[in-house]
């Protein structure tokens, strides 16, 4: 069968799952961030794929650009938070950041 929309979507889903896995399992905050970036990439693939196959104008791509920009912003903020966290706990091990515990 020819590669169509569904292939891209499955690829995206797989990428998403991997990113999710990283987010959930990783102890290191920076790695968690990487997982988030993966998830965003998966979403972007979806945008572009839909733009290609369903709605043929460029709106999807522009959305993807915006996502990238937002990702950059969130990465910057998140890293700042990580640095701050490090300042306080002298570690970026997320197991230790559990002040929300009930």
């Amino acid at each position, binding site marked *: 069968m020819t590669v169509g929309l569904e292939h891209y979507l499955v690829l995206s889903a797989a990428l998403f799952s991997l990113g999710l896995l990283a987010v959930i399992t990783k102890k290191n905050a920076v790695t968690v961030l990487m997982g988030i970036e993966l998830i965003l990439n998966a979403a972007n*693939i979806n945008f572009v794929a839909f733009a290609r196959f369903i709605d043929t104008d460029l709106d999807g791509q522009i959305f993807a650009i915006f996502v990238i920009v937002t990702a950059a912003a969130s990465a*910057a903020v998140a890293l700042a938070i990580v640095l701050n966290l490090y300042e306080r706990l002298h570690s970026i091990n997320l197991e230790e950041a559990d002040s929300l515990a009930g």
Partner: protein
Amino acid sequence: MSLFDVIFYLFAAFTLASAALMVVSKNIVHSAVGLLFSFFGVAGIYVLLAADFLAVVQVLVYVGGILILLLFGVMLTQRITSVDMRTGTLQLVPAILAVAGIFVILFRVIRTTSWNIVPEAEAQFIPTAEKIGYLLMTDFLIPFEIVSVLLLAALIGAAFIARKGT
């Protein structure tokens, strides 16, 4: 199976493999490298999807920007020379189960949905940079501006948060 398809599968496999490396690897630097390749793979996928400009952006921003940023994060929080560049994992088994569940769900959704595909559009390969530039300055001007402000605010905020001794 056309050449096009082959290229897709190659890229897809490359992307997923790199991503898997990033997830599995215990060394944070290896993870970063895996992520890098994964980003490249996604850029390739964009090209296949006729999004040339986006592919370039992907490479420039992600590979050139975000990844560097992440690496900086690594450097600042862990000394590169230290032995302990490895990071552990937690709740691995339940996580894998849940994520697998999610993947299955997504897969099912994708398979069972009847997509309303526009057929003839597949062949078109028109450079998109000019059109995107035009759109950003017309229809998407306000989101563009907002996102610019957001970025600015995020950067200032990041700088503020990361300041020492706050």
